């Protein structure tokens, strides 16, 4: 039975969001129309056009078309798979073993298909002559293909979380982590790794010395222009925004959102110290930051900077007192303030880790990213979803302890992953010896 229609006021955030999206689309169309080569532009855009015209003609061979079609077909079909799994994951606690078997049969059929596709060599993504050419349209299509592929992997990894939480609402997911007393990253570590890694790959962060970011193909490399170049600014801003968005989703889904570490263990003591001492962490953190600001304030040359640092230090001291006062306030205020502190610190920690990852690891080619996404990330995410489904069913029907059931399935997934890795490495060696390609 369908539930009655919700009040229209409940959909107001959606309408606002839709209006913002429509406005952004309109702006994008207007901007691209004014920047297109047909319009008389000089300088960098004209140089781009003159450089790109000759090589781009040679690119559109059958191989390029087939490669893009393959990426698009995989993206479309796996989107359907992932989208079908969400309603089932939400209702998973209501169905018995029959439901679990249905999901496993569904995933089994599709993973068998993916295994055949892998054997046929459709997931090889060999490098082509077009790899380093400066063509805008090709760069845009490649960017779209890699974004879609890594995005599917990230969304698929969230199915494990929905299975564990039983709801798509972010409030409910954090509440479920509070109820079950443990952050979901410990229940589904494979899903977390897949989400983090594929989101990092999807971001396609630009680096100063490489030309592989999709938007860099259009406006030129990051090093060729100042960071304040107006044409590049939206690209950088989009990357920062994406980083924080990914960190926020990872925090809510895997890291317990706004929960304090050991949020449920209110009575326990470790080595004689009560766990409640963690409640002082927000105040101590702000005091430490305030001390850092005061130290900076003393050592800076510029008088205005010194005043600014001292002011910020004072602000941090005020926040520390607010956090301490919240401990004695009604529970609602304490939850709000401390929850905000824990949530923001987790988001910033994730964003820092993401930045570190993307700047420390060497940038590889687009082909390697597609290979990683389709051979590893997407299958691992789906297998992790199957494993978590089995674990949840074990916990429900046969009352296994959640720790044991999830540890068992995670171990099974890791063994399967290692087995696949060895076969994949052997296959790559064989193909490299055969064709002598450069990775």
């Amino acid at each position: 039975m369908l539930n009655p229609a919700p009040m229209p006021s409940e959909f107001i955030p959606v309408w606002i969001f839709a209006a913002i999206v429509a406005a952004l689309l309109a702006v994008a169309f207007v901007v691209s129309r004014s920047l297109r080569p047909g319009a008389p532009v000089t300088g960098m855009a004209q140089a781009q056009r003159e450089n790109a015209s000759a090589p781009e003609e040679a690119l559109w061979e059958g191989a390029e078309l087939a490669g893009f079609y393959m990426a698009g077909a995989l993206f479309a079909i796996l989107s359907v798979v992932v989208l079908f799994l969400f309603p089932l994951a939400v209702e998973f606690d209501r169905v018995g073993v029959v439901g679990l078997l249905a999901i496993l049969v569904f995933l089994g059929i599709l993973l068998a298909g993916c295994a055949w596709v892998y054997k046929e060599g459709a997931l090889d993504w060999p490098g082509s002559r077009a790899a380093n050419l400066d063509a805008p349209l090709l760069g845009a299509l490649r960017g779209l293909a890699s974004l879609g592929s890594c995005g599917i992997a990230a969304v698929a990894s969230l199915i494990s979380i929905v299975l564990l939480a039983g709801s798509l609402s972010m409030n409910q997911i954090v509440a479920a982590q509070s109820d079950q007393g443990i952050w979901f990253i410990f229940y589904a570590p494979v899903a977390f790794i897949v989400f983090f890694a594929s989101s990092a790959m999807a971001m396609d962060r630009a680096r100063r010395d490489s030309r592989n970011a999709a938007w860099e193909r259009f406006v030129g490399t990051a090093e060729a222009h100042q960071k304040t170049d107006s044409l590049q600014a939206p690209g950088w801003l989009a990357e920062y925004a994406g980083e924080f968005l990914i960190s926020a989703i990872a925090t809510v889904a895997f890291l317990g959102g706004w929960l304090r570490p050991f949020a449920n263990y209110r009575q326990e003591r470790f080595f004689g110290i009560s766990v409640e001492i963690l409640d002082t962490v927000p105040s101590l953190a702000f005091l430490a930051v305030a001390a850092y600001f005061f130290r900076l304030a003393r050592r800076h040359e510029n008088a205005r900077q010194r005043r600014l640092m001292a002011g910020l230090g004072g602000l941090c001291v005020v926040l520390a007192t607010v956090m301490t006062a919240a401990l004695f306030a009604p529970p609602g205020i304490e939850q709000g303030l401390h929850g905000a502190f824990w949530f923001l610190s987790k988001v910033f920690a994730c964003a820092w880790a993401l930045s570190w990852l993307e700047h420390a690891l060497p940038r590889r080619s687009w082909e390697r990213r597609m290979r990683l996404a389709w051979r590893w990330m997407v299958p691992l995410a789906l297998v992790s979803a199957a494993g978590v489904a089995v674990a949840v069913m074990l916990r429900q029907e046969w009352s296994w302890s959640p720790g044991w059931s999830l540890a068992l399935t995670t171990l099974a997934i890791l063994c399967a992953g290692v087995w696949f890795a060895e076969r994949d490495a052997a296959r790559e060696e064989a193909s490299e010896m055969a064709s002598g390609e450069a990775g």
Partner: protein
Amino acid sequence: MISPTHYFFLSFALFAIGIAGALARRNAITVLMSIVLILDAASINLAASSRMWGSADGQTFAMFIIAGAAAEAVAGLGIIVALVRRDQAGSTSDLDRTI
């Protein structure tokens, strides 16, 4: 919700446009797009009926239709890609006379 008749009118209008496009156009890709439009019209009809009768069956059927449309787009565009690769058509816009 407003009267379901509004949604049925919209659905029939889109359906008619889709049929006109599928039968009249000669380019294969445009025909495929018209077929997606027809399926979309059916989905609107099903969703409106589902809300009308208060049952989730119509919306589930619409989900299956959307999935079927994606699979059909994959297969149809695959045929087009195969034709272009075998040089039976110079490009996707040359498919006017091969079909």
